[in-house]
């Protein structure tokens, strides 16, 4: 399962930090999702911060993978925060009609970690 996902997953206390920088094509996105879930289970992480500040576009496929990942980790009992979405990416998604409903967001990694440490375990809508 680890093979196929070149995106490193770091651990900071009980939270995992993932920085997405490569252009996610479909199969990679799936491998990445599976790897994050497996790592959460193995390491007993309470939260996941996904930093997407390196992505210059997020299309509906990648947006769906991100939102689904958040819902999946939430079912497992770990909360996900998506951080660092660029202005033009946010504008594009909203203009397309996409809302990422129920996904927690924060400006950057620090804010995301802060959000998780203040309130773990809130369920996504």
């Amino acid at each position, binding site marked *: 399962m680890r093979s196929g996902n070149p995106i490193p997953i770091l651990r900071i206390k009980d939270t995992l930090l993932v920085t997405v920088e490569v*252009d996610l*094509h*479909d*199969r990679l996105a799936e491998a990445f999702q599976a790897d994050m879930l497996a790592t959460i289970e193995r390491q007993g992480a309470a939260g996941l911060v996904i930093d997407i500040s390196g992505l*210059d*576009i*997020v*299309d*509906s*496929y990648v947006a*769906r993978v991100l939102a689904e990942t958040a819902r999946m980790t939430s079912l497992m009992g770990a909360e996900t925060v998506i951080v660092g979405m*660029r*202005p*033009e*990416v946010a*504008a*594009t998604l909203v*203009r*397309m*009609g*996409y809302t990422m409903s129920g996904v927690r967001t924060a400006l950057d990694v620090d804010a995301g970690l802060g959000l998780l440490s203040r309130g773990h375990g809130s369920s996504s809508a």
Partner: protein
Amino acid sequence: MQPAPRTLSVERLPIRDERDVVVVRSRVRELAETLGFDPFAAAAVTTAASELARNAWCHGHGGHAVLEQISDGTRKGIRAAFCDQGPGIADMRHALEGGSTGQSLGLGLSGSRRLVDDLAIETARPRGTAVTIVKWARY
């Protein structure tokens, strides 16, 4: 009626697998940067290209993209066509209003239309779909 825009450059890229989708969107982004699109317009056209290239790959069983730099005399822009030999779009109105025949959101076509200045679909059942978008550099 406006005069037809002039083509400044044209290139053709294959769309046979998911890696080709990535190549097409990188190339559209490069064109947008070359033409001086602002970051919002560049993200919009690149995202639309990504959606439509993926559709040609996964709904249309692959095909190709034709990318053009165009000018209407006062502005420059990108015209991109995504062509496949797949089954065609059965219910065009449904598809354009955000309907999906798959498991996904159905935002590819309807969302792309909101991101660009023009989107036109030619579909010939049982064979093939071509979706053409135009996006002008702003200001």
